[in-house]
């Protein structure tokens, strides 16, 4: 959000520098979303809009309770509704609050070409620093969860900030405060993991044998976690990735191709330079000129 927090950065996009290390003792935070007690009321969505002053356009009904129809520059969180018929033939309506997962190893940050446009604070929150964002959309490609959205008005990328402004002054994110059933919790990540275990034990007593915590290690864990009744099949919840990882393509693109490419360019330039000082310029000699003149003259004569 601001340079005031710059000493809290532990990861910074598009930098070759080491981020400030002196203050990296802060507790990691996490938001825990207990899907099993979410009633899909969208209080979190409206709280997000209220706190962050977001007002997307009034849309249309598009065949589901999901409104707006998708995440967007002004839609940082969205309730997703999936009608699922289980093996017993009973209906389950799986409702999931979608939004930035605040990965420990953020794909957006990895992909971002603008220095400091995406940062991760010591508490784990991944934040977009708008004045540095160039609107290229690389974060969209980097994200394994399909979260960031680029505004057509200001060409900045937006997503949930985990209310980093509130958290930095000791408040919980707005969605957490608004949730009427306590389905969204917030605190130290270790506490949230413990809380999740209690919930999982309770869910197992209700017959959800595969209840579990969604904290995917493929992205180093996330700072937004879910308690799922069907942790064995995250994709049931409106396509929550079963095994989210930063795409190999992005890894390649943002990995060794970057230094290799620069080296290749530099090498080509250097090769030219050394060729110049070794072989030197290829100059036209006077003999050449004479020969050339001769050929031309003979040609003219022949033609005339």
């Amino acid at each position: 959000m601001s340079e005031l927090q710059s000493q809290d950065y532990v990861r910074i996009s598009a930098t070759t520098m080491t981020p400030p290390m002196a203050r990296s003792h802060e507790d990691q935070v996490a938001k825990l979303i207990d899907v099993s007690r979410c009633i899909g009321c969208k209080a979190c969505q409206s709280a997000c809009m209220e706190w962050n002053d977001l007002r997307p356009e009034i849309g249309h009904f598009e065949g589901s309770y999901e409104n707006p129809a998708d995440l967007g520059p002004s839609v940082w969180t969205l309730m997703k509704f999936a009608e699922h018929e289980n093996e017993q033939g009973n209906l389950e309506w799986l409702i999931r609050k979608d939004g930035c997962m605040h990965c420990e190893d953020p794909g957006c940050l990895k992909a971002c070409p603008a220095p400091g446009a995406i940062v991760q604070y010591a508490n784990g929150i991944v934040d977009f620093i708008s004045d540095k964002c160039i609107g290229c959309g690389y974060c969209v490609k980097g994200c394994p969860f399909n979260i960031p959205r680029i505004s057509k008005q200001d060409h900045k990328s937006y997503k949930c900030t985990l209310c980093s402004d509130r958290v930095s002054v000791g408040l919980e994110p707005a969605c957490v405060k608004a949730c009427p059933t306590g389905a969204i919790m917030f605190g130290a990540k270790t506490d949230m993991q413990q809380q999740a275990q209690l919930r999982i034990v309770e869910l197992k007593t209700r017959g959800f044998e595969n209840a579990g915590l969604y904290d995917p290690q493929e992205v180093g864990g996330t700072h937004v976690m879910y308690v799922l009744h069907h942790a064995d099949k995250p994709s049931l919840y409106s396509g929550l990735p079963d095994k989210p990882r930063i795409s190999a393509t992005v890894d390649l693109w943002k990995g060794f191709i970057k230094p290799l490419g620069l080296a290749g360019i530099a090498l080509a330039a250097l090769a030219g330079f050394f060729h110049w000082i070794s072989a030197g310029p290829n100059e036209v000699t006077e003999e050449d000129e004479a020969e050339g003149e001769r050929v031309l003259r003979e040609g003219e004569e022949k033609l005339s």
Partner: protein
Amino acid sequence: MTNTWQDIKNANVVVVMGGNAAEAHPCGFKWVIEAKIENGAKLVVVDPRFTRTASVADYYAPIRPGTDIAFLNGVIHYLLEKDAIQHEYVRAYTNASLIVKDGFGFQDGLFSGYNEEKHSYDKSSWDYELDKDGYAQSDDSWQHPRCVINLLRQHVSRYTPEMVSRICGTPQDKFLHVCELFASTAAPDKAMTSLFALGWTQHSVGAQNIRNMAMVQLLLGNIGVAGGGMNALRGHSNIQGLTDVGLLSNQMPGYLTLPNDRETSFDEYMKTKLYKPLRAGQTSYWQNYRKFVVSLQKALFADAATKDNDWAYDWLPKLDVPLYDIIRAFEMMNNGQMNGYICQGFNPLQAFPDRGKIRRGLGKLKFLVTMDPLDTETSRFWQDFGPQNPAKSAEIQTEVFQLPTTCFAEENGSLVNSARWLQWHWKAADAPGEAKSDIWIMTGIFQRLRELYRKEGGAFPDPVLGMSWKYTDPREPDPEELAKEMNGRALTDLIDPATNAVVTKAGTLLDGFAQLRDDGSTASGCWIFSGCFTEKGNQMARRDASDPREQGIAPNWAWAWPANRRILYNRASADPDGKPWNPAKPVISWNGSKWVGIDVPDYGPTVKPSDGVGPFIMNAEGMGRLFARDLMAEGPFPEHYEPLESPVENVLHPKVSSNPVARVFADDRASFGSPKQFPYVATTYRLTEHFHYWTKHALINAILQPEEFIEIGEVLAKEKGIEQGGWVKVSSKRGEVICKAYVTKRIKPMTVDGKPTHVIGVPIHWGFTGQARKGYGANTLTPSVGDANTQTPEFKAFLVNVERTTAPAA
């Protein structure tokens, strides 16, 4: 609610039937989640649709709209068959053992005493057999064939699981599983709470739906206990307060009955109110009725109400019909019998059935006054908004006065929540523009009318001229002043007749309704509110959340009527000896000399258990009623009647298919559709994202649920070629709505009497004013018929057809 929101957490089973608590009451629903997590409670949902409440339920069973009585009578059948009732509770606290009159009977769908011409009952046989002292006879051995429990057993014997499934469309195994879960709370230390709302009230048999579940709860011993009760989740802030202060056409404040035109004198009126105890030694609280009425009259008319003029009884309006409900009002408008209408915080064009009829009625008025913070559809009924409101302005002569009012956050005052708490709130912002408080507007109208009466006389100026109006600012009484007036005060020094000592000085605010007198020495505008604003201050403004047993009772948070009691009938939380049924969650108990506990006893505080006084002191027999005597229009036991518009005949008694005492106006009956033309059952409801027709004016809510739609099952959608998110036309005999379709797995066809029956869900929230996209409103489709007791319209079950179509003309 008999209990409180917080108390829900004490339940072992939570049943949501006739409501959709998670969607309509998301904030209160936290206590259901709490019950599940902290108390291991099971949540059961019975609903035509798989709702957001069902999404977090442990068990869901579908039911055809309008068949709850068949389901619940089936539950009673199951409980009695399996003997899964709390015997000691039922014997001691219900009228199970009382003997019913010989003439009482039930045959072919009708109880004894039916008058076919009048569509009503002579209820004289619906009563107990009395002994020579006027007390009800009983048979504690339950052997007498006419004791209530045996009559009930006989009545529900037809509601076998097969029959329930045949009527309700609920698969038998699901029905039986629900029964099992209910039955698990027959144990004395287990409780089930029933959370319901408009899903039960908005039927032609609405009151009986609720009564039916109350009977189940009595049989299970779940009334009066922590985590139990019948909990009506009130939808509208401040709808509980509205009924409390008597804003219904047949009531006065505090649920006192408005006189009818046969009660020509005060004595005549009181005759039917002072219920005599029907059991020896029983307390009957309504013995105090006279005190409440006289104190109300003193509050209304002050010195003008005297003993000599029967406390100005003649100034009260007298009803010539059971009630002047809204359906009747619009019938009268359409017939030219009502020419002016004041809509205060009310949007009937969207909120009442058969919009076409409402619009025509409004168009026949001479004047219409709307008082609302929002630009309601009713205020704009005369304007052409295209197909959503095709009005021909040039032909409408109604003069409309649109008066903008303040919102709750723009004024001080109290709101009564579902748990009967009067919670004071403080003004947070100034009202925009020219908005004025309802008090200011109503006072202005009153003062001007009074001036006209004073100058010009009129048919009957006395009550208007005699009305007491002693407020600091007579143009705008202060909310605190009004609250004090409702609380009541001593008008003269109150003297204890035993000691002759002055117990309460003249002018003192009363501590509670126990101090009210019938000699004109006290005034109280609403006896049940007495105690809300005492000499100790504004009790409604209290904000101490401490809850001594962590059991959901914080006695110093706000103030609950009556007498700051949080759980009604809490005497029944303890056994006849005064020991709590559930020692882990006691409410009150007898300590040898008095009743003690976390709540104000709903009982004489020092009445000994051995005195045998029944716990339901508002009833003349002191017992919970499995047999309702003459209090219900349809009969003392609930009986399944089909909705007025139903896809099937009543399989129990085809000749008496629907409610035999429903009041139906002739032209309304003509606008009922047949299943041939309109083969699908429709039900209307609310969505979390919106509050009635208000929040479509709010941008965020409009964003969250922008456009009108219906919900339709996949099977029917396929049959009709309806696409996900495509346009459909839903039509009833009364009108049509063109909107989007939500093709869903959450509504499945049901097999009713062997035939597949499809349900169409119609959310209500859209209209043609506000920020959301323009819509018609569900009540374009609904029938104009109400519950026979309350005239609450039957919004929840009617017939429609549905077809694929294209977008309506812009």
